[in-house]
C-alpha cells in the first residue's frame, strides 16, 4: 500500500435528512475528509443492496449509507424497511469474509451537520485501517 493512498468511499445519502445534513456541514464550514463521493437518493429505503455491491465492484474502498433517524423518515417508514435489508446484507457480507467496515451505515438528520462530519471521519478512518478493497472489485472493464 502506498503511503499516500486515500480511500474512495461512495456515500448514498437520503435527500431529506443526511443529504441536507451534509449540506448544513458545508454551509457551516465544518471540515470533513474529502474521501466521499456523494450519491443522493430519495430515501435510504430506495437503496437497493445491489447498489452497494455495485459500488464495491466498481472499485470503491468503502460504502456509507445514511438516512433519517428511525421515526423521522419523510416517507414515514422507508428507513425501517432499509434497516432490515442492510442488516441482512451486512451479516451476509461478513459471512463470506468481506470486512465488516467496508460497508457502514448511519442516521443523520438535516440539523446534524456536526454529526455528519463525525460520521464521515469515522467511516474514512475505519476504511483506511482496512486498506484498499480487493475482494469484490471487478477484474476487468466492459463497455455497455
Amino acid at each position, binding site marked *: 500500500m502506498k503511503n499516500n493512498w486515500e480511500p474512495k468511499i461512495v456515500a448514498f445519502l437520503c435527500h431529506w435528512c443526511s443529504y441536507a445534513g451534509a449540506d448544513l456541514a458545508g454551509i457551516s464550514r465544518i471540515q470533513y475528509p474529502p474521501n466521499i463521493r456523494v450519491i443522493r437518493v430519495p430515501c435510504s429505503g430506495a437503496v437497493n443492496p445491489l447498489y452497494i455491491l455495485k459500488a464495491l465492484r466498481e472499485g470503491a474502498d468503502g460504502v456509507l449509507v445514511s438516512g433519517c433517524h428511525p421515526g423521522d423518515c419523510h416517507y414515514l417508514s422507508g428507513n*425501517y424497511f432499509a434497516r432490515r435489508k442492510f442488516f441482512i446484507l451486512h451479516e451476509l457480507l461478513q459471512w463470506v469474509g468481506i470486512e465488516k467496515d467496508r460497508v457502514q451505515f448511519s*442516521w443523520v438528520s438535516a440539523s446534524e451537520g456536526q454529526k455528519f462530519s463525525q460520521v464521515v471521519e469515522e467511516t474514512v478512518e475505519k476504511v483506511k485501517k482496512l486498506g484498499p478493497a480487493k475482494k469484490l472489485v471487478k*477484474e476487468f472493464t466492459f463497455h455497455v
Partner: protein
Amino acid sequence: MFEKEIRRKSEELLETKTVDMVIGYTSGSLPFQARPVLISSPEDTEQLVWNHFSSPNLARYLLPYRDSSKKIALLAKGCDARAVMVLIQEKQFPRERVHIIGLPCPGMISKTKLEKELGEIKEEDFSFEKDTFLWQGKKWEIFPFLEDTCSRCRYPNPPLYDELIGEKRELWGSSSTDYLEKINGQSEEERWQFWEEELSRCIRCYACRNACPLCYCKECFAESDLPRWVSGVPTLSDNLFFHLGRSMHLAGRCVECGACERACPEEIKIGLLPLKVEMIIKDNFSFEAGLSLEEDAPLLTYRETDPGEFIK
C-alpha cells in the same frame, strides 16, 4: 414407499377431471435419478415413481401454467409444499388451481455420496426400507448418504396439502459435519478462503437459479443490460456479485430445498448462501418462508425493535 397409492390417487384425480394435469416424478435416464414429469391422461400415471431420488423441487414446474386455466395436482415433499406456499403468497399461482398431494419426505439420497462410500453401484442391488437400505447383504443407515439439505431438513412434512399420502415423520438427528455450522465458527480469513475456493469454480451457467422455484423473474439482474450489474464472464468478483445478489433476492423466500445446490455441475455448496440469509432472518426477525399464507414476508414489514446497533 406409497408409489402405488400415488399412482392410484393421480389416476383418480385425472379420471374425475378434478385436475387437468399431475406434476410428479418418473425414472430418470440415468440410474439413481428421478425427473419431473407432467401427466395429463389417466393411463400415463403408471409412469409415476416416488423414491429416495425424487429430489427436484416440483413447484418450479407450476410456473409455466400461471396464466393458464389448468388445475394442477402436484406431488409435494416438505420443501416443495413450502415453495408452493411462497408462490401462492407472491401471487404467482392461485391456491384454487393447485391440488397439493403432500408426501412426508423420506429424505433424498445423494448418488455422489453413495458412490464415494460404496464404489461402483447398481440400482437393482439396493432395497430401501424406512431410514435404512440393504446392499450386499448388509444393512446401512440412510442418514450419512442424505443430500446435505435433507440431512439438515427441518420440515419434512408438507405444511400445506389437500391430502396426505404416507405417515408424517420425525426430524433426523443433527449432523455434526454441517457446513453452515462449520463456517459460522470460522474467522473472516477462513470464510473468505472457503468462498474464494468455492466461487472460483463457478462457471455462471445459472443452473442453480434455473432450478430454484423462487427465481422466476422474466429478466434476471445477472443478465440485464440496462442497468448492467455484472459481466457474464465468470470471474471470482462477478460470481460473488451474482450469488450475493441472488441470496438477497431470496431473503425471506428461500425454502431450503437445496435444488440450487444439486443442480450445480461444479458441486459448489451454493445453497449455503441463501440458507445463511434464512438463518439470519429466522434468528433476528423470527420468520421462516413457506409456513404460512397470512404472515407478511420479512422484507415487506418491520418492527421498531429490529436490530439497529450496526448503524451509527
